[in-house]
């Protein structure tokens, strides 16, 4: 039986639902030494900002029970260097490239999209409104439903390419944010970004990461992420890319059942850089065993 693994995220067609998450694959070159990226549905680049960002001082990461906290501070090369130095490699990868953008003003989001939209290799934009580790101009876009609406609207007006808004879980009702994205013309949402957390050294009484708080990721957040995806699925008709602590194909199936059309792998890439390919094989096997002809039929197939 040949299984159809392809999925659609609005207008974005992917050969399969396995994507690698922003901030966990850099610009593709390092992880390509360990895995065949051409087999995957796509990769989402490290958040790009208009100008290069140095990122936060060390210590940036700390391990926690079944998870980790990070406060990288959006270290990135900036859009210009990205086009000049990173696109040529990414072009040859034969996988769908989604470009993640972070900014500190609405205008900056639009400017980034305007600079990047002419690049044919970029098939969609993922807009990071929810980095928990960078606060500029007193704005935390991810918590501000009006700002998320405005960013979606302005970026929508700037490009015809699919727009995915990456949502923060650090809000009381994530589905309201997804609704705003839909109303303002966004094609899809990614859920979830990391949860704000911290960790202290009991001897020095100091925070273990310099930024004091960081974003929690890894298997520790999976139940929360699943609940957020389910909440969006039950309340808003918009494609969802599920993210949060996926370690293996069973986790991926679980996300699809609660409503994800595709999934992103994050922290697992740090431990097993070939996880994407292995999860894809697991998904195919699961379909075969359960006589599922189209993997996309799993999406939202929960029985409640």
């Amino acid at each position, binding site marked *: 039986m040949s299984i159809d693994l392809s999925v659609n995220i609005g207008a974005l067609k992917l050969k399969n639902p396995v994507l690698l998450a922003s*901030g*966990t*694959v*850099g610009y593709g070159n*390092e*992880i390509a*030494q*360990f895995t065949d990226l051409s087999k995957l549905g796509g990769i989402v680049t*490290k958040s790009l900002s208009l100008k290069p960002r*140095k*990122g*936060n*001082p*060390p*210590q*940036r*990461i*700390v*391990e926690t*029970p*079944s*998870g*980790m906290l*990070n406060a*990288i501070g959006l*270290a990135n090369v900036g859009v210009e260097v990205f086009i000049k130095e990173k696109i040529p490699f990414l072009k040859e990868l034969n996988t769908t490239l989604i470009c993640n953008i972070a900014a500190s003003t609405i205008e900056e989001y639009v400017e980034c999209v305007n600079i990047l939209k002419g690049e044919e290799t970029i098939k969609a934009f993922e807009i990071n409104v929810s980095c928990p580790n960078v606060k500029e101009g007193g704005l935390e876009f991810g918590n501000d439903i009006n700002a998320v609406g405005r960013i979606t609207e302005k970026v929508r007006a700037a490009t015809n390419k699919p727009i995915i808004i990456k949502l923060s879980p650090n809000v009381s009702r994530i589905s309201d944010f997804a609704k705003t994205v839909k109303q303002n013309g966004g094609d899809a949402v990614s859920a979830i970004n990391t949860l704000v957390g911290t960790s202290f050294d009991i001897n020095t009484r100091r925070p273990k990461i310099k930024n004091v708080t960081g974003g929690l990721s*890894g*298997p520790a957040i999976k139940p929360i992420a699943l609940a957020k995806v389910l909440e969006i699925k039950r309340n808003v008709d918009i494609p969802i890319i599920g993210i949060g602590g996926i*370690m293996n194909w069973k986790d991926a199936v679980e996300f699809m059942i609660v409503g994800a059309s595709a999934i992103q792998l994050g*922290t697992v*890439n*740090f*431990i*097993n*850089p*070939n996880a994407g390919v292995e999860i894809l094989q697991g998904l195919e096997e699961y379909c075969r065993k359960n006589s599922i002809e189209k993997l996309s039929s799993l999406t939202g197939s929960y029985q409640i």
Partner: protein
Amino acid sequence: MYIEKAKVESIEKINEQTFLLKLFSPSIASSAKPGQFCNVKVSERTDPLLRRPFSICNVEGESIYFLFDIHGEGTKLLSHKKFEDEIEILGPLGKGFVYDGSYETAVIVAGGLGTAPFPFLINRLSKDKKVAAFVGARSKNLVLQHGLKNISVATDDGSVGFHGTVVDLLKKEISSIAKNKFRIFGCGPNPMMKALQKYAMENNFDCQISVEAAMACGFGICQGCPIEASDGESYLLVCKDGPVFDAKKVKI
């Protein structure tokens, strides 16, 4: 770089807290360079979640060695590994020591477990080079001499050798070494590396230091292990640009 399932060939306790682990790892053994490291998966569970980075202590045929202390949950699990257990290791990673050149003496300055990368370095040095190893530890029972030669010891409590830091010992002995052209290779806790770097730079010594940092992936994708470049303009990554740096290139 490889992800290799390596079988434990031996695991030996060499002092009250340090273990020497020997693994059959032909791909990594044939490609590793002194000063490089591997990121080791200590368990199949999700807690502890991350791999643990260890310097490659030595290479012998198709086997590699790691030296490690029990430091937390991860290293405790590693210490429980038995003959023929499989351990998944990723490596070799990072940039190692630059050890060719016209100097005559390789001056090794190591603190605590910082001796780990040097047996491999000594093995690969050309035969005409002399070695002078300075080893520091808190006290006598923690001094590591495995795989080193021509060793001078310093202890914080004076229980053996020089009473003081290993960098102070180096300062005391430098006149006898400086008769010949030398290069310093340092590895140890960051405060010690900072002291060594300061001393080397003040005297314009040729010096390479191996630094440590918390890290997740070990090959550049998580961006978790920054170290500031000496110009203060940018961060380098310990995993990918290091762990060995020219002492002039970074701020510790």
